């Protein structure tokens, strides 16, 4: 599985609409939005129902710097041959793109727990979706407040 980095149709429309403003608002052009995140999620789950639950995001509610935010995603699952988590997809709503990572796991994992560190361009909601071997989708989310570091370095 690859991470879906290409623009979805929705993003492309947003982008086209945005080009007129490019000279004034370059950053407004191709950013993830709650709508873009929803579209990216739809891309993964198709028409399946996504139920809230079983997925826990462990992320500091307030982080001093968005460049390195520790995130652990845990999914309740027996992780047996018959019933396990196949994949975990993580999305954000305000970075330049809505994708964070797509992880593939299985009964050999023993435990559906993944830790990593992510970049968050702003305070926002993170959503994780777990796909089970039974074809179910479960989701969890967390809100993170990103504060800005003081006394940065000037690019010279």
């Amino acid at each position: 599985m690859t991470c879906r980095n290409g623009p979805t149709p929705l993003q492309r429309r947003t982008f086209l609409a945005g080009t007129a403003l490019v000279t004034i608002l370059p950053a407004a052009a191709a950013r993830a939005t709650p709508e873009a995140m929803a579209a990216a999620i739809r891309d993964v789950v198709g028409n399946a129902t996504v139920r809230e639950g079983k997925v826990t995001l462990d992320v500091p509610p307030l982080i001093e710097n968005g460049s390195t935010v520790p995130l652990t995603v845990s999914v309740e699952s027996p992780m047996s041959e018959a019933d396990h988590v196949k994949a975990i997809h993580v999305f954000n709503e305000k970075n330049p793109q809505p994708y964070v990572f797509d992880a593939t796991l299985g009964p050999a994992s023993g435990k559906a727990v993944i830790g990593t560190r992510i970049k968050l361009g702003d305070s926002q909601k993170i959503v994780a979706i777990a796909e089970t071997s039974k074809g179910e989708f479960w989701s969890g989310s967390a809100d993170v407040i990103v504060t800005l570091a003081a006394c940065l370095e000037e690019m010279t």
Partner: protein
Amino acid sequence: MKAARAALGLVSLFAATWAVAQGTLETRRSGYQDMGAALRQMQDDDTANPGMLFVQLGAAAWDKPAGASGKSCADCHGAASGMKGVAARYPAIPPGADKPVDLGGRINLCRTGRQQAEPWPAEHRDLLALEALVALQSRGEPIAPPADPRLAPFRERGAEIYRRRQGQLNLSCAICHDDNAGKQLAGVVIPQAHPTGYPIYRLEWQALGSLQRRLRNCLVGVRADAWPLDAMEYVELETYLMDRARGMKIESPAVRP
């Protein structure tokens, strides 16, 4: 369990009374204490602290011969573990010199003098990596500037710079880090600016960096012109800051926001 808790209570009560009795109740705080749990955990776990990637690079550089001498750091110094306490003493005046250098400057002196190699430019990854390796050996050691009377004028100039208003914002180091430490700036706690963990992995940089780089960030912060990379002002300020943090424990490589 209850007994253990009671014992712990007694111990901390004793520790507090003892500190007060000695008149040494520590009010200085490492920037570590101002960070959230997530970042403290990142620093504490050597398998998760990104600074340790650079320590590993430093360990490779330590054994690698360099320059016309064909010598490595290890050829003269042996195992890096023999460098315990070194980072806690710098800046110091090297033999035959009349002014102090910081740890990076000292490593470059070895490089040009002993190894007969080109000095590393400021913030070179290999230089930072060696600094991190050497500083790690002093982890947990108290900061202990040498009792060299020749350091006094440099330390005093450093103290003067620390209190001097600078830049368009007309702020001194002291206004933020003494008078307003513990308050918030842009949502972040202003630390007391004790250099306990250099070189640090600053999340803002997404890389390891030196105290000099951090000082330049402060200068930019108050809208002052940063001094040239080889300016003595940095070493003077470092000499003062290490004295100000005397006795605090080295925690390199630290993680900071």
